[in-house]
């Protein structure tokens, strides 16, 4: 059996089964604390007001439930999608770790090896994420809250620094395309803040989904249209 056959006929079907099963179990397991509050402590929510809370929450986040899985799919792949959406913290951990794992072994994103390496990288990031949180929660807020404000303030700059570094890591191999995409995103954010998209209904989370999903799909469309065989590209048209 060759590599592609094994991957497509052995590995992937199995992962789809596990992914779906664990996804369903995860949804059910998420309710266990709710049930314990209810049964053990008789702490019930106000049932009449819960739908209003749910509706407010869905108005805020509901669009992201669909837009994020679609937007990230081409980065995460199917197996990564199962893992990333159950464990969360996608932009700040899953995507950086999966792609840095690929970089470290020169595995091409989208190839069979690339997907396997991304899965392994993502699993490691989940384990470290959970371990750090577990240690943190055991040490408790007592110790954590003793951190000087300069440290906690500085931590706020870690993610933008990470994203800048990651864009350089990947963009340096395709400079024109990366610069074009960044220019597109910057213009888009400016337009969003200027209210150019005020007509789009789910306003609250607009800046959370529109740039990423449009950048990913415009980028893919641009690459597919311009790269026939020899990669030769120009910056994408900015809006």
């Amino acid at each position, binding site marked *: 059996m060759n590599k592609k056959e094994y991957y497509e006929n052995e590995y992937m079907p199995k992962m789809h089964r596990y992914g779906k099963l664990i996804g369903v179990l995860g949804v059910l397991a998420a309710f266990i604390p709710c049930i314990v509050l*209810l049964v053990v402590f008789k702490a019930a929510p106000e049932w009449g007001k819960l739908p209003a809370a749910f509706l407010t929450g869905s108005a805020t986040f509901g669009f992201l439930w669909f837009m994020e899985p679609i937007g990230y799919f081409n980065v995460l*792949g199917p197996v990564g999608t199962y893992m990333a959406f*159950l464990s969360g*913290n996608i932009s700040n951990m899953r995507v950086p770790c999966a*792609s840095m794992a690929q970089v470290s072994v020169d595995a091409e994103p989208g190839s069979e090896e690339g997907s396997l390496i991304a899965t392994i990288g993502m699993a490691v990031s*989940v384990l470290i994420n*959970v371990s750090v949180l577990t240690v943190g929660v055991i040490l408790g807020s007592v110790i*954590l809250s003793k951190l000087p404000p300069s440290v906690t303030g500085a931590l706020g700059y870690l993610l933008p*620094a990470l994203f800048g*570094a990651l864009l350089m890591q990947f963009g340096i191999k395709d400079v024109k395309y990366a610069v074009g995409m960044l220019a597109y995103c910057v213009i888009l954010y400016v337009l969003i803040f200027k209210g150019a998209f005020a007509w789009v209904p789910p306003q609250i989370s607009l800046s959370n989904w529109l740039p990423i999903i449009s950048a990913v799909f415009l980028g893919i469309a641009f690459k597919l249209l311009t790269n026939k065989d020899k990669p030769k590209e120009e910056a994408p048209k900015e809006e």
Partner: protein
Amino acid sequence: MDAMQIANSIPMWVACAIPVGLIIFQAFLFMNKARQACNAIGYPDEKVKQAIKSSAITSIGPSLVILSGMLSLLITVGGPVGWMRLSLIGSVMFESIAAGIGTQQVGVTLGTDPMTPTALAMAVWTMVLCSIGWVIFATFSASRMEKIQHKITGGSTKRMAMISGAAIIGCFASFVGSHLVKFNAELGGFYFSKNAVAAILGALIMFVMLKVSAKNKKLAEWNLFIAMISAMILTAVLPIGK
């Protein structure tokens, strides 16, 4: 019983440990299956180990950011729920907002008013109800999206690589864009933020690291870590940006 005593009680720890355990189980299972597949297709084990190491190094910084985000949840919804929510489907931004939406319905402002058992239940139920949409949609659309992707690429690995490469850069460009463009009406509209400084410094230092480490694999492993940490510290120390 006081709401925070309930929130930090043993039964709540046990209840939250189950979903966290499931996440750990999934990570181990997927990692093992992927390693098995690597073996089966003859992918060298040293490379797998290298990838594990690299991901571990990348994980440290972001984990600390998530940890600092958990701080506020510890105070509002207690240790177990904060710990679970940031391990399962969680994101720092989402959780506090969702919890606040829940408690608001029963007249408790998160972080200001004392928590009541009812408000705690509202917070936890709202966080859970509003987060499962992601998992449900992602879980049941993954194979469908794979089919669509397959149709677009016609099964060609080269086109797959092209798509993934384009998507990754698009993804990071949008993340960086969100930090470059900051808007605050009180500061007079658009302003040059510390976040923008951090993103630019991160990119510049990474550029230097990529050049310096071009011939040194051992150093290259630490590129991202060095770039991210030094850009963070410089941003905090330098008097540029608001």
